[in-house]
């Protein structure tokens, strides 16, 4: 597996593990919060239920206190509106909006909430009839044109004789509903045939009926529903959960992409460097090409680490190239004359043959041999002999063109390869060399030095041996014909 894949795989694996752990944690938190939320709503529902029951209790207790008052009984019997008003107004409260005293004819004797409104007939009201027939009524009915929770009860003299009715009522309005749900996050709605009230403009969610023990009244379809005004908290929780999921997911994708591009950027540089080395190893590049490729691959954007590695590789390649050059030079150079050695000459000859064959060009070779060199060694010693060889090589090198290849073939024998040179041209050069040597003097050798030269020109189908053999034959003829001369074989 590639390094890129390994790094990416392992990193994604870790990120996915973190992501899953994060999701697990968030989900656990969500479930815990939701349980708390549900619990809170349950408590709130019970609290609202309790408040409603307390409101009913207040109505009943108020009525009972007034019923037990002898003054109230006297006031009802004697139609003492003023006394009944003075008594009842003391019991008006936010939980008791209306207190009415009604005689057996259904005429209101006194209203606690309205001092000067009385004497009207309410005998047809449902709650009045119910109280007269059944002793008590606890339910919803219209009282003075307003839908109310009403508790009506017979008032009895000496606990036996009914003398009238007391009705205690609480108006079902927005304030009443608000008082039930005050301090909670829940809403309550009241619906009847006449009106619909709600503490919230929004529709109640998870609405449930309030469990109220009310008698069926004249108001049809009257009922209370409680529910959540909105699942704002839960929705916020869900939204937070979703946001966290999406956030973590996006972060994961962003991290993977960032990793991908970082890896690509860094590995691309490393890969380019390593590819250079691979190409060098597999001989697709030589050391100089390696150096130039490394140089090209490093730019200003290259990371410092890669730059340093590239520099190191470049310097190393430079040293290898230098060493290679030295070795090559050593392996292809004659140590004495500093001319190309026989191996180098053979390579050059091979190359020229290939070029000539490929390009249909031509070249010539001159085989050169110093005459009677053995006598020089024997007479003047090897040191002088070497000196002669060195100086002769130097003189010949001065006489040839830059493109010509001159080398020591062995002993006192030299080979000169003349690219793009015909036989005639080669003979001219050979003669110039012979004459130059002949007319040259040597510092430690007092004799005139002569050399024999055999020239041959490339022919189609030549091999190194065939062209060298012809040059060698020409040289042999020059030796046989008296030395210090140039011969050729075509």
């Amino acid at each position, binding site marked *: 597996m590639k390094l890129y894949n390994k790094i990416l795989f392992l990193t994604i694996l870790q990120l996915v593990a973190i992501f899953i752990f994060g999701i697990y944690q968030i989900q656990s938190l969500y479930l815990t919060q939701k349980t708390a939320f549900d619990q809170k709503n349950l408590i709130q529902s019970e609290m609202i239920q309790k408040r409603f029951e307390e409101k009913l209790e207040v109505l009943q207790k108020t009525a009972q206190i007034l019923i037990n008052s002898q003054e109230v009984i006297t006031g009802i019997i004697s*139609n*003492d*509106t003023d006394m009944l008003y003075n008594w009842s107004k003391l019991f008006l409260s936010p939980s008791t909006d209306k207190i009415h005293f009604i005689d057996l004819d259904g005429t209101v004797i006194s209203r606690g909430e309205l001092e*000067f*409104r*009385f*004497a009207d007939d309410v005998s047809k009201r449902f709650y009045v009839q119910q109280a007269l027939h059944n002793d008590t009524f606890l339910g919803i009915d219209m009282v003075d044109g307003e839908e109310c929770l009403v508790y009506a009860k017979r008032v009895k003299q000496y606990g036996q004789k009914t003398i009238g009715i007391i009705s205690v009522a609480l108006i079902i309005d927005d304030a009443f509903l608000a008082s039930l749900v005050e301090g909670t996050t829940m809403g309550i709605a009241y619906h009847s045939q006449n009106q619909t009230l709600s503490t919230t403009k929004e529709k109640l969610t998870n609405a449930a009926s309030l469990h109220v023990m009310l008698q069926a009244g004249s108001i049809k379809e009257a009922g209370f529903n409680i529910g959540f005004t909105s699942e704002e908290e839960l929705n916020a929780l869900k939204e937070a959960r979703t946001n966290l999921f999406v956030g973590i997911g996006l972060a994961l994708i962003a991290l993977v992409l960032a990793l991908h591009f970082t890896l690509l950027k860094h590995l691309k540089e490393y890969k380019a460097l390593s590819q250079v080395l691979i190409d060098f190893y597999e001989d697709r590049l030589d050391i100089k090409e390696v150096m130039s490729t490394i140089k090209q691959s490093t730019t200003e954007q290259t990371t410092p680490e890669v730059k340093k590695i590239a520099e190191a590789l470049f310097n190393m390649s430079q040293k290898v190239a230098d060493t290679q050059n030295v070795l090559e030079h050593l392996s292809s150079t004659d140590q004495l004359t500093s001319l190309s050695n026989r191996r180098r000459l053979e390579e050059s000859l091979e190359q020229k043959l290939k070029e000539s064959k490929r390009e249909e060009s031509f070249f010539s070779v001159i085989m050169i041999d110093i005459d009677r060199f053995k006598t020089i060694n024997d007479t003047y010693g090897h040191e002088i002999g070497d000196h002669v060889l060195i100086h002769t090589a130097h003189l010949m090198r001065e006489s040839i063109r830059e493109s010509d290849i001159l080398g020591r073939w062995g002993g006192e024998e030299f080979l000169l390869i003349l690219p793009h040179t015909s036989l005639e041209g080669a003979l001219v050069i050979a003669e110039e060399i012979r004459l130059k040597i002949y007319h040259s003097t040597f510092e430690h050798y007092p004799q005139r030095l002569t050399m024999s030269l055999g020239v041959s020109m490339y022919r189609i189908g030549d091999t190194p041996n065939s062209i060298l053999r012809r040059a060698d034959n020409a040289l042999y003829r020059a030796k046989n014909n008296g030395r210090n001369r140039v011969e050729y074989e075509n």
Partner: protein
Amino acid sequence: MLLRLVVFSFFIFASLHAKEYIFATYPSNTPSKIIQALTPLMEYLSAQSSDTFKLVVTKDYDELTKRIEEKSIDFAWVNTKNFVLLKEKIPSLQYLVTYLEHSKNGQITPYYQSFIIAMKDANITSLEEAKNKHFAFTDKESTSGYAYPMMIFEAHHINPYTFFQKVFFLKKHDKVIEALINHSIEVGAISDGTYYNALEKYGDRFTILATSEPIPLDAIVASENVSHQESKRIAHLLENIPLNSPAIKAFEEHLGWASAGFVRKNERFYETFKRTLKVPLYETLQ
């Protein structure tokens, strides 16, 4: 020397004959206000009579009656009903004077009246037309809000408890007016003073269906302790009290009464009230 002896003897005689009288009333208003309203009158009487008048406010009407019977008080300020009842109970009770007041109609009278009124928009022009309507008295203890209206009904041979559809008790005269204005009742019994006040407040929106006989104002009486001659002397002092005296001003200041002093009437002046006691009470309390 003889003159000095005569003056000294007169002084000794007068000192020996100067009396201390107890002047009592019952709490018809806040006791402190009553004390503030009547104290200047006590000072006036003390100064004019050379006697000492001490003010006593009894706990209630019963205590006042009891103390008159026991002769532990000498003078008393009583309302009409109390006077009539006391006189029946204690025949020796001596009438001195009747309180005078500036009436709302501009007259100075020793009496006031009860009106049976209806709202004009109820289109009731006579008592007979008020049949089966809703009616309100003030209080059964009220002279002008109950006793005299009952006399009116008696004169018309009306039992209000059957004549009217419902009869209510609203305690105060002003409340009867408010109940009429709010159309809770169509007919009500009030004093003439309340009527004139309502006229000022609401305009001419009421019809007077019936008017009672004059209702004597409060009386000042003397117990058996006080001699007939002495009671006449005190009555004379009261009759002649200046209208600008501190005693008269104190009534206005502390009780809001438009007092015009006192007048001595005949005891028969109060006999009209005696008839109210004979009117059937039609008690509904069982």
